[in-house]
């Protein structure tokens, strides 16, 4: 079975981190005596890591474009502060606040993007400066105090759950229905894609592999939905996350915009000589990062129900680590959205699992660092082998 062997070889690289994530989950499930996969903990896991994942989506694009953004933690903090002051001190409606905050995030991104794309200052330096500037502004805006609590509507952004339309006892049926619909859509899309490939006469993966893949994906989605349904249903934040992941996954893999970003990260000069307007593309990459940081900042604030000067401290490291663990290349041009998401979950599960086991924050840091190193080594090793 040469095909099976080569299929496995190819997939170990494609799904390597996914397999690692599953193994780590199994490990913690065993070590924590089943606490990890309890509905309430799974819900917590999603809530705790949502903002890391949201920022990782933007960071992945920044990294693919060939740069880095160190300021995301500070940007999240300053936007949280802005939102808090607007709502608590100035009594602005929370929906309006939400919009203004996203706009503020875009402006911050545009500010940094201008220096990077047009003034040609390396992103590392610009965003290092941004990290200090926006952390400082956070303190200024908040006067060094914690500001809260927020209107209920704003809190729901992070701690709310989608409403149940069925009122069935003990199980959140809407969640299961949504999970079922999502599974059907995914299967349908995969079949369409496969048919399309066959129509054009391209090699497709063996049929049994196709079946297994879809069963695994459907199983994972439905399993997760049942777990969630037996607690409070789908958190609002998870719905936002799924939509964002699907959106950015689509942009990066299917659109001309995405293709041009990969080309720019792979070889900026060649891309420019092929008509890619790389300064503009880079500018908008950072605007996008600013908006996503702003969204993450609001979710953090909503979750804690208070904006603090220390919010988002050190987030940038988790976010960047998530991208690299997910297979992004530090030299640009390589990386996938789904990889960054898996990377972020991997970090999240480790944080969560180690906390349940009572491992101190000191050792957690050290272990996470080693995992990052190992993951990237695994990636580099595989790449070298395949050439």
């Amino acid at each position, binding site marked *: 079975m040469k095909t099976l062997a080569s299929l496995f070889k190819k997939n170990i690289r494609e799904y390597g981190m996914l397999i690692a994530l599953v193994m780590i989950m199994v490990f913690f499930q065993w070590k924590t005596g089943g606490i990890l996969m309890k509905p309430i903990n799974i819900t917590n896991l999603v809530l705790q890591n949502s903002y890391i994942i949201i920022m990782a989506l933007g960071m992945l694009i920044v990294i693919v474009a060939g740069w880095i953004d160190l300021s995301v933690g500070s940007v999240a903090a300053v936007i949280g502060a802005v939102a808090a002051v607007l709502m608590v001190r100035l009594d602005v409606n929370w929906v309006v606040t939400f919009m203004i905050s996203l706009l503020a995030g875009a402006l911050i991104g545009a500010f940094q993007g201008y220096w990077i794309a047009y003034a040609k200052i390396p992103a590392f330096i610009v965003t290092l400066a941004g990290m200090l500037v926006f952390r400082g502004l956070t303190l200024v805006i908040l006067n060094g105090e914690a500001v809260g609590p927020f209107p209920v509507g704003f809190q729901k952004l992070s701690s709310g759950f989608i409403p149940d339309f069925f009122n069935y006892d003990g199980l959140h049926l809407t969640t299961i229905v949504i999970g079922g619909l999502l599974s059907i859509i995914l299967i349908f899309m995969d079949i369409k894609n496969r048919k*399309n*490939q066959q*129509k*054009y006469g*391209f090699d497709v993966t063996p049929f049994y592999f196709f079946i297994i893949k879809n069963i695994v994906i459907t199983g994972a989605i439905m399993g997760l939905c049942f777990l969630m349904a037996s607690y409070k249903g789908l958190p609002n934040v998870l719905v936002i996350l799924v939509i964002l992941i699907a959106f950015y996954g689509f942009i990066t893999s*299917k*659109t*001309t*915009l995405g*293709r*041009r970003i*990969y*080309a720019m990260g*792979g*070889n900026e*000069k*060649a*891309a*420019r*000589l*092929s*008509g*890619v*307007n790389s300064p503009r593309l880079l500018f908008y990459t950072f605007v996008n990062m600013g908006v996503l940081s702003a969204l993450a900042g609001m979710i953090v604030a909503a979750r804690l129900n208070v904006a603090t000067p220390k919010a988002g401290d050190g987030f940038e490291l988790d976010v960047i680590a998530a991208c690299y663990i997910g297979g992004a290349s530090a030299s640009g*041009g*390589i990386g996938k959205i789904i990889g960054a998401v898996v990377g972020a979950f991997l970090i999240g599960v480790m944080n969560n699992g180690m906390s349940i086991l009572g491992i101190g924050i000191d050792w957690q840091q050290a272990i996470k660092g080693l995992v990052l190193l190992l993951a990237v080594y695994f990636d580099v090793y595989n790449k070298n082998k395949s*050439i």
Partner: protein
Amino acid sequence: MSDVILEMRNITKEFPGVTALKNVSFSVRRGEIHALVGENGAGKSTLMEVLSGVHPYGSYSGDIYFEGKECQFRDITQSEAVGLVIIHQELALIPFLSIAENLFLGNERAKNGIIDWNKTISDAEALLKKVGLKESHSTLITNMGVGKQQQVEIAKALAKEVRLLILDEPTASLNESDSEKLLELLLQLKENGISSILISHKIGEVSKVADSITILRDGATIETLDCAKETITEDRIIRGMVGRDLTHRFPERKSNIGETIFEIRDWNVYHPLHTDRKVSDNINISVRRGEVVGISGLMGSGRTELAMSIFGEAYGTNISGTAYKNGEEIDISTIEKAISNGIAYATEDRKAYGLILIDQIKDNITLANLDAVAGHGVINEPQEMTVTGEYRDKLGIKCSSILQLARNLSGGNQQKVVLSKWLFANPEILFLDEPTRGIDVGAKYEIYTIINQLASEGKGIFLISSELPEILGICDRIYVMREGKIVAEMQSSEATQEKVMKYILTNKR
């Protein structure tokens, strides 16, 4: 001491799915220049990689004897230790270090890790004298031309007490006079008892300096010619390389020239950093439909700079002048505008400026005209696969699949990908900058055929080339550039190599 310095016996090297070398035997006599020729992919580089230990002992079968001793190199340091030095096509010099620092890189004149600068400098100067390079030892590599860098590479090899020097395409990026100098230097080293292996696609220089010529084809030795015994003509070598008679090195073409399609008037360009230096000085050039116009000149005469400044001001500052297409003035101030006006520029440096090496062939081909395979910004991947597959077949790109990464292709095939990209953008005016640099005779012929095909479709083509036979062979009209100016224009029917060369060189500073 025996007469033979190197002997490789029955070398077989396999890569997954491909046999790169089949039972190749190859020997070099002491004190000769031995040329190794063959088309791209014939196995020349692989053979040299086996020799120098890039492919370690055990990954190939066969035996290597150097100076009569069997060698089992595990890496390059071991082969360099016995005096085998390879100079690669892509030079391995550090741009922001001085000549002296580069010469002894990894081989420092030092005691206990502390560099002895006096010895470094005096040794460096001795080496520079040996290779005839008139530069200070403290000159930074980045401030020198490619020709001089090549000389530094050779001096670096001499610093390692080289006994057999291997040069991979040393003159590929050199102009005629620098190539001459380099070949002179090889002959001079031969006088001093240093043997060399010269890999080259330039048949002319091979027949000029080589004592023997070994021809590889499809991973096997075809023959070894002894230049002392018989006179070897260029055609004789080409016949061995391609396995057929190339009666015509340039395909026949019937010119069918129409109206002027594109014209540049009073074009002035200044250097981007030294803004008082003019790199294009009052240039007026034009091309007609179906016409191939050659731009000849030395490297550094401003040919690439001119083409890139026209292509959306991709080079230079303070650009002034006007561009006309079909008699109407057009705006070509950005690359996007130039492309949408039907202009294409295929670069001379395909790795740095032409390709996204880590991307697939198909991604590279569609990059300049992505919207043609997309609707509302969404790429239609099956359609993309189909059209790029058509270009692969049309231009004969040899690859396992169009999903293969561009970096894994040979030079000729990479060039075809670059050409495919610009053909896919459907331009009317093409600037082809050294389109056949570093590629083999067979692939060159294919590129010429493509150029002819484009001309017959009514496109206007500017061909920038350092090879005079190429300019004379396929162009209808020729411009000669020198120091940023057009110094001559002639029909190719009235041009000869000597005549063009005279314009290229006279009034040299």
